[in-house]
């Protein structure tokens, strides 16, 4: 494949301003149980090549599963054809980047595709069984997920690199129903759990069966818990919910293609502008956010992005001030940056890369453990595990709901509260950040359903967070 892609890009060099080609073989496995039965055992595999060409200011892209010299040449011709079909536009520069060479393999102690289905089902069924017993628990679910991707990248600038990545994880959820009330509780995260760039060892460490009884008990307790009151108060977020808060209100907002308007018709724009760099206050001085494609275990960790830019760690927000964007070679050059942020990613061989999050992390603070943070809070609400999310197209006005919350009074965690929710405006909310737990509480959370691009792409990204505290937040909004 290396030779085929090299030949292809050499052939393309004389016919366009720039071209690259990616071979991608993707594998995934989804195994799930539901109410004690096997609900899903599915394996998916696809492979093909995507050819991307640049003519003037526009990109053309064609994908094929015909992995022959002829098949790739046809794809190149099609990419040139669709590029030329577009109305003419002036050429724009790409930020320079040394051609990528070499190989990257993500850390993986145990290949999840080599673990037997029986072993995985045994873990899931044990966890599923652990959540059942009370008739009010109407639905129990347990999930195992695994992904692997082999890729080769070549470009007309002489890049030629290979990567192999493995992701694995899972989770459990119990849904309790009584009367008109329905409550759900999950571990370690909602929407099929938590996934990391790691092997089966990550799934094993989730200890799903151990957490199953607690998950069911909390789902049942939520049925009769008092509703989260409405008003402005101090809000503590667990790491999982905070990860989605970072994702929606920092990650997407700092995507430079959105900032520049390239995604306005679908994903939306941003409240940020290029002129805000190094000037705009995003949040309190305790807010430090990085985009780090080098951190171990992150779903946005790789050797090179999908246009051959080496993995980087860059500041997005430092001491509450905007310091960077998530960028590509084109968008970086568009605002005069010397280098791309290395954030171009595609969801498979048949999609062209777009600016994506890597691992957008809220760096740890010095507030100790979550218990310390609760003890340091006189009055407020602790919310845990995302249940619902929504934010406007400029990433300003958001509303989240979580599965559970606890009232905090006098530095102690008190009553469980049902149907918690909160809303805010991004810079105001982050200005209220006054404490982030310490490094011992910091961990990566996988988000496996991030949608963007047309045709649509679903990307896996991670967010490193530790529990944090926000002052004067509107809660109980739904």
């Amino acid at each position: 494949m290396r030779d085929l892609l090299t030949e292809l890009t050499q052939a393309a060099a004389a016919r366009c301003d720039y071209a690259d080609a990616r071979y991608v073989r993707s594998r995934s496995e989804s195994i799930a149980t539901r109410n004690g039965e096997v609900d899903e055992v599915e394996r998916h595999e696809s492979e093909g090549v995507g050819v991307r060409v640049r003519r003037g200011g526009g990109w053309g892209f064609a994908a094929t599963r015909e992995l022959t010299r002829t098949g790739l040449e046809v794809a190149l011709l099609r990419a040139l054809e669709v590029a030329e079909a577009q109305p003419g536009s002036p050429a724009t520069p790409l930020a320079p980047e040394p051609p990528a060479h070499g190989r990257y393999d993500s850390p993986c102690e145990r290949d999840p595709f080599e673990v037997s289905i029986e072993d995985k089902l045994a873990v899931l069924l044990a966890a599923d069984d652990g959540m059942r017993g009370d008739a009010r628990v109407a639905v129990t679910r347990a999930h195992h997920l695994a992904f692997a991707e082999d890729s080769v990248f070549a470009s007309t600038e002489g890049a030629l690199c290979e990567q192999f990545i493995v992701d694995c994880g899972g989770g459990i959820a119990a849904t309790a129903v009584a009367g008109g009330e329905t409550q759900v509780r999950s571990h370690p995260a909602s929407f099929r759990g938590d996934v990391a760039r790691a092997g089966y060892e990550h799934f094993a460490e989730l200890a799903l069966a151990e957490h199953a009884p607690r998950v069911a008990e909390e789902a049942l307790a939520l049925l009769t818990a008092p509703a989260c009151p409405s008003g402005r108060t101090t809000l503590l977020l667990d790491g999982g919910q905070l990860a989605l808060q970072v994702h929606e209100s920092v990650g997407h907002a700092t995507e430079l293609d959105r900032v520049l308007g390239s995604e306005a018709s679908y994903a939306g724009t941003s409240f940020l502008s290029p002129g805000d760099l190094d000037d705009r206050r995003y949040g309190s001085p305790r807010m430090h956010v990085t985009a780090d494609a080098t951190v171990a275990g992150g779903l946005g960790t790789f050797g090179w992005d999908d246009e051959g830019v080496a993995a980087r760690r860059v500041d997005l927000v430092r001491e509450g001030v905007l310091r960077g964007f998530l960028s590509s070679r084109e968008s970086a050059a568009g605002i005069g940056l010397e280098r791309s942020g290395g954030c171009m990613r595609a969801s498979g061989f048949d999609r062209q890369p777009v600016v994506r999050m890597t691992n957008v992390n809220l760096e740890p603070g010095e507030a100790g453990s979550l218990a310390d943070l609760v003890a340091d809070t006189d009055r407020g609400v602790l919310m845990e595990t995302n249940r619902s999310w929504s934010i406007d197209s400029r990433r300003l006005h958001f509303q989240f709901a979580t599965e559970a919350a606890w009232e905090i009074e006098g530095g102690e965690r008190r009553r469980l509260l049902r149907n918690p929710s909160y809303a805010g405006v991004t810079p105001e909310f982050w200005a209220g950040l006054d404490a982030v737990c310490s490094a011992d509480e910091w961990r990566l959370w996988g988000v496996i359903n991030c949608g963007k691009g047309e045709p649509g792409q679903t990307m896996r990204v991670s967010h490193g967070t530790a529990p944090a505290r926000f002052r004067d937040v509107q809660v109980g909004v739904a």
Partner: protein
Amino acid sequence: MPESPLDLAARALAAVRSGDGAQATVTTERSVLLRFARSRPTQATAIDDRSVELTVVCDGHAAGATTNRTDEEGLAACARAAERAAEATARTRAYADGSPGPHPGFPAPAPLRGHAGHDAETALLDPGRGGTALEAALAAGAAHGVEAHGVWTAAETETAIASTSGVAVADRLTDAFMKVTAFAPSGRSGYAAAAATDSKALDPHSLAERAAAKACFGGPTAEAPHLEPGAYPVVLEPLAVGELVGWLGLLALNGLAFAEGASALEGRLGARVAAPQVNLSDSPRYPGTLPRAFDLDGVPKAPLPLIQDGVADRLVHDRRSAALAGGGAESTGHALAPGGSPHGPAATNLVLAGGAAADERELCRPIERGVYVTRLWYTNPVRPKETLLTGVTRDGTFLIEDGEVTRPLADLRFTDRVLGVLERAQELSARPVLTSEGEFYGRRFATGVVCPAMRVRSLRFTG
């Protein structure tokens, strides 16, 4: 002569050597999509892919494997993977009494009704047609002094199913979609979109004109003030209505959710759940819809009344949810995946019947002070069993005063129950139109809701 999807499905099925039954599902996508932003082209994408999914049942336990390698070696590897998975599942979950697992078996063949959802010219996927569409939209945008953003896309998708129960069916569909988002110098935006099975039905100039008119309503530099949160009468354009009705389908009309006690219609079938003028069905061959002949179990699609004169009537089922529901429930042809999706069945051709109002303007007339909504964005369920959603308005939110749209508003967040909105529906426009986003979250499975505009007594805006 390239191999037909149905021939490939038969060849894939023949690769299965063990198990008690199997189904081969072939899906083919050929598509072209041209994007534009800030009044210039940005990305053009052409896709040509075909995948085979093999579902194998062993002792009543099903498992599946998918590949896009369609040579003999690729199909054999896919078959072995599905067989091993089904056997492993059966071994792990064998019942002490020897009874089979829960898979209801593959359906028997049934007669299909054809449809007119394939247009040969659209299937040519001529990118030149897309380029011409972009030129027209960009020119119209320039004439109005707005920035134009959007996509033009066309596709031909084919689905073929062959099973050991004798099903051997194939369906072809073309779809075309264009949207234009216009940004005025004020930063305000307007939106217009159209979808059809025939790319010639798209009018790029008209779409750009409509989007520009919304962005510039009240003047290209007019500010859009904020409205205080509260409940206001609203007129929802078809795009907004389609968004709400689509969520109702997923949350409440879903037979699996109902069987598991998670549907808002639990205990309410046969009861009034919406205003009397609300008539909702799933109608796979309704004029203007993106038609489908069968679902991904190969079960034929047929019109299904869901809400009649405001009364909840039926739910959608796949074979899996029907088996779980019991009581004689049968598949209604709404499987989203072979054997049924873990998320349950879903309506793919929702049609909300039109009402008596001539158009949106007439719908506005009785409103003293209210809100006009073009479309909704980032809607997500807050409490699914209540059909409680939150989301924001986008690309054209206006104030209605004394029966007329008078000035632009800043986008608003709503948090309300879909069934509540339908209960408070007062009037519908006469002509339903197809609303669609052209695809289905990355998978070219074009669906849409055919619906009219709607006046609602109140919608709860929360921010």
